[in-house]
């Protein structure tokens, strides 16, 4: 119990130090608007990719529809904050977005999660397209033109705090009885079922949870960028999140963080190269996939708990 407390305090300290560091750089003028934009994009991508990693890496279900749930969050915020343009209105809209996204995930998940592999990927991709086309044709969402002048209710600090919160919630969820049940379904569905675990239920739990985090990312995106259009949430947006997950390592939250930061930085640095940018970016992806097919970190996870016991473990493996 005491060790757990120490461990939690340690992580809290890491998060506070990160916050203070960014704040100091901002104050000293090291971070300009351009860099800040990059940091916020990275933060939002981490939120989105962590949720998708839960679905792909931990429950083993290949979903290509993450941008659909992100769109629900974004539009909930875009529409609601135009009438209630206060921070409270923003958080309210975020909650509404999460709830709608989760309900949508339930409706999509119950029939599609019976499918496996490629079929599930296609079905979730279709579901995301349905969401996008609905948004494209509704009056309230202003159709294909999208929404603009969304009140800027989000700063980098909001994104940072929410990034920390969603990560904590996701990691806590994974490292629990529920998370283990989800991973057992990924490992062997038939065996999990024979152990009394209902695979459909746990796959659905992961899927719905992931959709909720996608909605958070969407809300932040809408309030920070201030303009959204249905085209922002097409299949390419889903794939962009997928790239972060696969590149960082399927089943590694640490990897998701690293990949989101590396790709975000790479994207910003390569802006100077004009059109060459897309070639270098693609090349980097191909090289990583050739030399590290399991992603940058595989399923390795940063853990302060483990550092102490590492030595002992190494020995027992060599015995």
């Amino acid at each position: 119990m005491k060790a757990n407390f120490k461990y939690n305090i340690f992580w809290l300290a890491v998060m506070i130090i990160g916050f203070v560091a960014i704040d100091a750089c901002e104050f000293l003028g090291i971070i300009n608007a351009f860099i800040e934009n990059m940091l916020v994009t990275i933060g939002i991508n981490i939120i989105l990719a962590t949720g998708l990693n839960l679905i792909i890496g931990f429950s083993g279900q290949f979903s290509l529809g993450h941008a659909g749930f992100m769109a629900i969050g974004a539009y909930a915020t875009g529409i609601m904050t135009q009438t209630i343009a206060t921070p409270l209105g923003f958080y309210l809209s975020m909650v509404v977005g999460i709830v709608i996204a989760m309900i949508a995930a339930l409706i999509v998940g119950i029939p599609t999660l019976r499918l496996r592999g490629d079929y599930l990927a296609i079905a979730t991709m279709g579901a995301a397209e349905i969401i996008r086309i609905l948004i494209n044709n509704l009056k309230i969402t202003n159709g294909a033109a999208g929404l603009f002048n969304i009140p800027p209710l989000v700063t980098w600090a909001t994104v940072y705090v929410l990034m920390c919160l969603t990560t904590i919630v996701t990691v806590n969820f994974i490292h629990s009885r529920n998370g283990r049940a989800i991973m057992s379904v990924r490992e062997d569905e038939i065996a999990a079922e024979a152990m009394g675990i209902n695979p459909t239920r746990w796959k659905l739990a992961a899927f719905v949870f992931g959709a909720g985090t996608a909605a958070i990312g969407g809300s932040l995106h809408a309030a920070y960028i201030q303009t959204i259009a249905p085209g922002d949430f097409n299949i390419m947006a889903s794939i962009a999140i997928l790239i972060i997950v696969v590149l960082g390592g399927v089943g590694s939250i640490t990897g998701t963080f690293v990949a989101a930061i590396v790709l975000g930085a790479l994207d910003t640095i390569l802006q100077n190269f004009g059109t060459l940018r897309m070639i270098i970016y693609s090349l980097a992806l191909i090289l990583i996939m050739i030399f590290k097919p399991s992603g940058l970190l595989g399923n390795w996870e940063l853990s302060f708990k483990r550092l102490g016991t590492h030595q002992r473990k190494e020995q027992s493996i060599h015995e």
Partner: protein
Amino acid sequence: MSSPLLTAQQIVKNFGGLTAVANVSVHFDQNELIGLIGPNGAGKTTLFNLLTGVTPVTSGAISLYTDQGVQSLNGKRPAEIAQAGLSRTFQNIRLFKELSVLDNVRIAMTNHYQEGFLASIFRVPKFYRTEADMTLAAQKLLAIFDLTSVADQPAKNLPYGIQRRLEIVRALATKPKLLFLDEPAAGMNPEETADLTRLIRQVQHDFHITIVLIEHDMSLVMNVVERLYVLEHGALLAEGTPNEIQHNPAVIKAYLGDEA
């Protein structure tokens, strides 16, 4: 005679035109060790799959006798049947390979511990208590079967014999009333088989459960079981004690063919 635990009456399974299991009636009693033998393709594993709900029966009734009365298992999903107290191992080992030995066992305990979604997310003290309880129970079980030293290793790293043992431990972690073992000695050397024989006896003795065993290794079967069912071509050929079965002409014929 002891009271019955699970009965299957006239169960039939057709795969298209093929009858894999035809009109088989079996009963497994409390705290009994039963063997299920037969030539390859006799329908032994299919019978296991029918009883554990992996494949639904075409017709027939499966009933479980519990303290609350008789419960029909027809049409239930495997997870529900597992929760009702039937656990199993698999012919081709199905462990959660990437997960640690400890996690393999803790996963099997999922249904015996309540841990709310919110409790796990907000890490309330109750969460740590439940986790500690679960871990302790799993470690105890691992200690009984001499697996403590490998508790932190991924299941895939274990040697074959140990993987088989872990699968039995995992099945026991669900607190079953009835344990199905599907060819536990397959691919084992004589020494490992002898270990397994001791293990099966120990499990039945310590956990007071019914064990049903599919096995081709006759040294193991004849050694441990109290009663045997012999299947051939999906039908029940004989039933009796090991001694009776060894001298049953129909069984000898099924295994060795007609006397010339």
